[in-house]
């Protein structure tokens, strides 16, 4: 490598000029535009297209010598950025990867080289030297994957023996006086004005101690008529201190061809013109002397080089994957994630988004609540959403169930679970949604009509057990109370977090079920289990050993740890039965106020997110309304047990209640029977009246003559 000028004298005889090759630089806009052209314009047309790039001689030190193509590359007559030189190229866009691979690159290069050579021979290159900086771009655009394969070629004609350096490259300021430097700058600016441009790629110059003259290449003969001292200028995009950039190469071939026999040595100015911090400088331009090799006028086209090496330094094409910025699906995904990250960056720095996004949610029910829960989960970036519902979409649904449309009701109606999945995927293709069109067996709804119905019920139970196992959070969003029983039992048994939402006319409850302590490991002794099933009256004595007893005067229901919280059935004094049969017509057609499902659905998801942000998750102590004034336990605030809403008063309260030891769904005796007998136990519950569960749990004994306080489940979903 050529180094300091001091040692140059000894080795000068052997020194050959070496050029810095162009690096291709593509702006994203170029690929966007190529995509558009391919889709709208070229289609299957593979014929060569004219494109335009540009290069710049004002880069700060250390940047590679670039040929840049931007979106405007296809407007051949469009403007070139100020102070840049344009380069005209030929685009070969193939239709297939195979065509890209098998294109004869050598032939392409030779064809271009021949044209340059002919322009040199004919003199056309003198009049329009821009032909000297032509390029080739071979592309294949895989618009399914948004992968772009490309290979640039900057054709250069070669002298077999290279070009001898007579005088080493030096910075202009070491050779020129300050006066000469400014005269040169003026001369260049003058030439630009004369030619009505802001950059001149090639020029010729002569200078004295106090003056510099410049002219266009085509004025050569007149300009140098009175002198043997010839200097050519090239607008040089290279920033290396010892090497000129590529555009000089073909110019020297032109010079050698036309004047090689007459000229002994030629001075070369690599004109570099940069502005740093508002100060313009050309002092770092390179100036040197070379000896032009001779080129015979009748010689054949010299051999040519120019295919760009890939980043590994090997001869080969490059590929860029733009799916992230061009594939609409990927764009949607990254925007969704970004939106959430903004929430973290701006508002809640400690928010653990991954915990939310990666949570697998099982939605039992795809009606008004299910639709709204799913939409809110999507808003939180949750990717895995599974629906279970056996209903079909009816004409009354779409106005209240935001995942369905009128069209979905036609022909008897699509399955809700399936249609919900389709819609989620349309809203956001990045979602991983699944639907199960199946019914959930219920207490008091016999399944033993036939062998077939029994087998079906068993399959349904197994499927539900499997689904609950595979998910992290189970949402109970059905429209009957008894359909919540089976998933409550299974989820309690499997220690899965349950979030339950139920609607009245203008009231709702959103609650998390108590999360029983893990089956294995510490704290699962019978004692611990029984303590968790105490009624509220004994709650103070049931606080775990080591923790402070309840402060006298404080609410009995404050500070209940997650494992002692009740489930949806804990407050009931009747076992779930066939409520659809028992209900009066009046109750059956009761609908809730339209906003209620959205409010409750959204709260159910927000409650889940708050639970996930708590370090103890489902075991978190229940926050109550009283805690609203205290330091919140999570970055998002409280983690209540229940939210009960009263739309008539536009009011929510946050009650907490203990698990009930005679609960028909989560009491130890029920879980124990289910654990030991499995489907046999369940089928007894399905096939018997509600007294079976009441007898089992001891509820019958306790039965009082009170009415059920409130019936939370009223459907807005059933057609009359």
């Amino acid at each position: 490598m050529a180094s300091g000028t001091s040692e140059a004298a000894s080795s000068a005889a052997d020194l050959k000029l070496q050029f810095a090759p162009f690096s291709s630089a593509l702006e994203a806009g170029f690929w966007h535009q190529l995509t558009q052209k391919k889709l709208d314009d070229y289609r299957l047309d593979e014929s060569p297209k004219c494109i335009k790039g540009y290069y710049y001689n004002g880069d700060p030190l250390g940047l590679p010598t670039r040929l840049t193509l931007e979106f405007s590359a296809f407007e051949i007559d469009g403007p070139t950025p100020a102070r840049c030189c344009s380069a005209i190229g030929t685009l070969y866009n193939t239709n297939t990867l195979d065509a890209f691979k098998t294109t004869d690159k050598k032939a392409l290069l030779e064809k271009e080289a021949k044209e340059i050579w002919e322009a040199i021979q004919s003199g056309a290159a003198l009049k329009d030297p821009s032909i000297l900086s032509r390029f080739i771009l071979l592309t294949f655009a895989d618009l399914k994957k948004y992968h772009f394969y490309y290979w640039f070629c900057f054709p250069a004609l070669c002298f077999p023996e290279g070009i001898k350096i007579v005088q080493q490259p030096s910075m202009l300021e070491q050779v020129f006086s300050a006066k000469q430097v400014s005269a040169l700058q003026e001369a260049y600016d003058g030439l630009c004005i004369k030619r009505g441009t802001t950059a001149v790629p090639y020029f010729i110059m002569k200078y004295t101690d106090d003056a510099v003259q410049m002219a266009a290449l085509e004025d050569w003969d007149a300009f140098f008529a009175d002198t043997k001292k010839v200097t050519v200028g090239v607008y040089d995009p290279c920033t290396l201190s010892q090497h000129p950039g590529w555009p000089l190469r073909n110019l020297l071939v032109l010079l050698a061809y036309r004047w090689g026999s007459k000229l002994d040595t030629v001075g070369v100015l690599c004109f570099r013109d940069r502005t740093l911090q508002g100060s313009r400088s050309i002092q770092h331009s390179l100036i040197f002397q070379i000896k032009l090799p001779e080129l015979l006028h009748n010689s054949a086209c010299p051999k040519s080089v120019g295919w760009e090496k890939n980043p590994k330094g090997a001869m080969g094409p490059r590929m860029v994957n733009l799916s992230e910025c061009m594939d609409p699906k990927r764009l949607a995904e990254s925007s969704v994630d970004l939106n959430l990250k903004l929430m973290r960056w701006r508002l809640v720095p400690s928010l653990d988004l991954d915990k939310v996004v990666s949570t697998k949610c099982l939605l039992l029910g795809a009606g008004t609540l299910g639709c709204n829960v799913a939409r809110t989960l999507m808003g939180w970036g949750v990717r895995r959403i599974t629906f279970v519902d056996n209903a079909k979409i009816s004409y009354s649904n779409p106005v209240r169930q935001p995942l369905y449309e009128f069209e979905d009701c036609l022909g008897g109606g699509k399955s809700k679970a399936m249609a919900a999945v389709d819609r989620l995927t349309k809203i956001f293709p990045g979602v991983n949604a699944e639907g199960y069109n199946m019914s959930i067996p219920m207490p008091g709804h016999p399944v033993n009509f036939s062998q077939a119905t029994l087998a079906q019920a068993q399959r349904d139970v197994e499927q539900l057990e499997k689904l609950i196992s595979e998910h992290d959070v189970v949402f109970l969003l059905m429209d009957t109370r008894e359909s919540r029983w089976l998933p409550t039992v299974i989820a309690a048994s499997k220690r899965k977090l349950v979030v339950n939402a139920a609607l009245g006319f203008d009231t709702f409850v959103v609650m998390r079920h108590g999360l029983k302590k893990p089956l294995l490991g510490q704290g699962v002794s019978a004692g611990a289990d029984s303590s968790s099933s105490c009624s509220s009256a004994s709650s103070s004595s049931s606080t775990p050993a080591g923790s402070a007893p309840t402060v006298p005067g404080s609410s009995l229901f404050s500070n209940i740890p997650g494992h002692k919280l009740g489930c949806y059935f804990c407050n009931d004094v009747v076992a779930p039965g066939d409520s659809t049969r028992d209900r009066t017509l009046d109750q059956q057609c009761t609908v809730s106020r339209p906003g209620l499902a959205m409010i409750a659905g959204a709260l159910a998801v927000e409650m889940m997110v708050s639970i996930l942000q708590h370090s103890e998750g489902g075991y978190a102590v229940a926050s109550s309304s009283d805690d609203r004034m205290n330091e919140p336990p999570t970055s998002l605030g409280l983690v209540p047990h229940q939210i009960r809403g009263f739309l008539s008063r536009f009011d929510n309260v946050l009650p907490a209640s203990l698990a009930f030891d005679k609960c028909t769904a989560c009491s130890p005796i029920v879980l124990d029977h289910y654990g030991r007998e499995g489907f046999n136990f369940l089928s007894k519950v399905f096939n018997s009246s509600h007294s079976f569960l009441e007898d089992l749990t001891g509820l019958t004994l306790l039965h009082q003559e009170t009415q059920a306080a409130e019936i939370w489940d009223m459907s807005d979903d059933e057609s009359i």
Partner: protein
Amino acid sequence: MSWCGLDEQSFHLCCQLLLQQSEQLNDGWSWEVVQGSDEGYLKKTALRVVNINPSRKWDLEGLNSESETQSCQDTERDQSAPVSTDDADDFKGNFDEEVVEDDSVCSEAAGSSLVLQYEYHILFSCSYSVPVLYFRAFTLEGRSLSLEEVWSSVHPNFRLRLQSSPLNTITLQEHPLLGQPFFMLHPCRTEEFMRPVLQEAQHRHRPVNFVLTWLSVVGPVVGLEVPLKYCTLLRPAASPD
């Protein structure tokens, strides 16, 4: 206190002035007109060299920007690459049967640094009545940088400040005129941090180019330097003190 925003007409005047000065300083700003409309924006492109660390996750100071980088969904970083070597022969086809020796090529290539192309746009936000800086960055292959990559290329000093400062933060937005995804520095606090600057200037009867002053504050955050010479052009020797 008085409102310290900008109306659209003043924005255009400020831009014209900035363009004139940029022309003098050769600072590279241009006015781009959107095809088929009379709307436009200031545009400048610039290159920045970034060092890559071996894992191909790179940033300016070799600092890892805590969890942001990790949470960026383990996307394969091989988004732009030479075609794998297995395929290389396949790709060359009939090409290198006769390898063309070229000893006139200088082998002084760029090292392990990555060159990024930045594109900066200044638009007027009608809703905030302030200028807004939009930008995007790509590799030389034309691959746009993700927000994580852009974020990691923000100087660590700014990174901390961005999370709490009035400059607020970098967000991904659709370019209002081009409809393409761009990053932007959110303008919601612009008026707030511009107010003291403008009041000070008013107090001293100094001319202020709102866009230029604003740019000199927000630009450096995303690697856009505003030469000091703009100020001397704006306020020639005549200024008191």
